[in-house]
């Protein structure tokens, strides 16, 4: 194994980290604001992938699919919020977990009914086909695109959170939702907005993952656990935590599989345990 091999693995890890970031950032900030965890978030990722496959079939354009998936998933998010989640707000964590856990199975069966049980694929956009030379290795251009997209979303979210009035409102709501409400901020509406953005990002993650993974009904359940690991390792409610947690989880999972394949299945859980022993609240919790 030479340097080129490790560079490729690092890029693979980075690409996985970016998908995990797109998934976990909405989840963690929604949790920070409202202490609400949506276990069906993984199903929304799968929905994004399926919608992308269908949209590409209709329009013949993968780019159109990348635009359609977040919009469609955000719309489903709006419906979920209005029909279910709004009522669950004061129902306590156990009910929230049970209902959103149940939603996973509802979505699984809906995917089977609509798209069937056969794995589907999505072609990558033509301009991104092929390989690119980087750091002395050749790497699939499309995977580099995923990395850049993740970094771009990261930068935009960081800017919005740090520099805009709405970002300050979100940080205030995560710090202390009751005091934020006492300053006239409608925290429920803020939560709704963040929830929808989180759904759109999950849909986007599913759509951009579709060309590199096969699109199957259970792809959402597979990614849910690593996503929750990211949220817990990073520390609840913070963007910095989502970034750190995604990178750590992506790298541990990728390099764990390379270095010790027989232990790969437990690598991220060992990391989770280690982080929780050293930093019980995660690496960068929003509420210190």
């Amino acid at each position: 194994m030479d340097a080129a091999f490790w560079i490729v693995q690092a890029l693979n890890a980075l690409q996985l980290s970016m998908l995990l970031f797109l998934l976990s950032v909405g989840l963690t900030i929604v949790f920070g604001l409202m202490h609400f965890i949506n276990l069906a978030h993984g199903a929304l990722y799968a929905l994004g992938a399926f919608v992308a496959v269908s949209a590409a079939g209709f329009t013949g354009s993968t780019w159109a699919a990348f635009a359609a998936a977040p919009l469609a998933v955000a719309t489903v998010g709006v419906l979920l919020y209005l029909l279910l989640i709004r009522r669950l707000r004061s129902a306590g964590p156990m009910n929230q977990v049970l209902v959103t856990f149940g939603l996973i199975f509802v979505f699984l069966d809906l995917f089977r009914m609509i798209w069937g049980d056969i794995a589907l694929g999505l072609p990558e956009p033509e301009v991104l086909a092929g390989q690119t030379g980087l750091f002395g290795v050749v790497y699939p251009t499309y995977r580099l695109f995923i990395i850049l997209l993740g970094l771009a979303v990261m930068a935009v979210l960081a800017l919005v959170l740090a520099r805009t009035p709405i970002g300050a409102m979100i940080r205030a709501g995560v710090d202390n939702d009751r005091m934020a409400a006492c300053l006239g901020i409608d925290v429920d509406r803020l939560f709704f907005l963040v929830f929808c953005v989180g759904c759109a990002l999950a849909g986007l993650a599913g759509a951009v993952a579709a060309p590199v993974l096969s699109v199957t009904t259970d792809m959402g359940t597979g990614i849910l656990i690593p996503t929750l690991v990211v949220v817990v390792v990073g520390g609840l409610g913070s963007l910095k935590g989502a970034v750190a947690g995604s990178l750590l989880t992506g790298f541990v999972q990728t390099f764990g599989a390379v270095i010790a394949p027989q232990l790969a299945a437990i690598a991220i859980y060992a990391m989770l345990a280690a982080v929780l022993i050293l930093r019980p609240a995660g690496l960068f919790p929003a509420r210190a």
Partner: protein
Amino acid sequence: MLEIAELAAGYGETQVLHGLSLTVPAGRVLALLGRNGAGKTTTLRAVMGLVPARGGSIRLDGRPLAGLPPHAIARLGIGYVPETRDIFPSLTVRENLELAARRFARPGAAWTMERVLALFPALAGRLGTGGGQLSGGEQQMLAIARALLMNPLLLLLDEPTEGLAPIVVQQIHDKLAELKAEGLTMLLVEQNFGFAVSLADEVAMLGRGAVVWSGSPDAARADGEAQARWLGV
């Protein structure tokens, strides 16, 4: 301005307020005194909608507040300075202030950023500081400044002197006296008898979740028996 009648409120199984009634007239300062656990903080929290009212009524200029969410009550014109100050640690001092200023700024409003910084010059030099890095006195000033930027009709203050050094208590006293001179309506909850009585136009003492004594500051000072019985001073 604020009329509370027969208010019942509490947490879970525990009822704290048992038929509390009080009135804060416009332009006046009412000091609400009482021992720990008498229901002072719960009264303010019930006014803000943070604790649901189980009975009775709360009205602001005749408009019932019960059942409204806290953000709606805040927008009707009540500024709240909680006991714990609740400065947002993830926000700078400037962001803490702007959060209130942006939502409540209107042309001709009494309180602007410049004016609160003139009132609390100590904050002017700390605008870029994180909310989590302030001293207790600075936190208290910021909490009051933030509430003023809401241009409230009524200011609720929960133990503004708690945990502060005597010199800072004196500063806060002078600032609140300035606000009083401007005619700002305030409901002031305190444990510090001397501080509260020197600011107040009227005094109410709380015992077991209801008002048990009310009168002028002079009468409160003179009534040693009521002080001993309801305040333990």
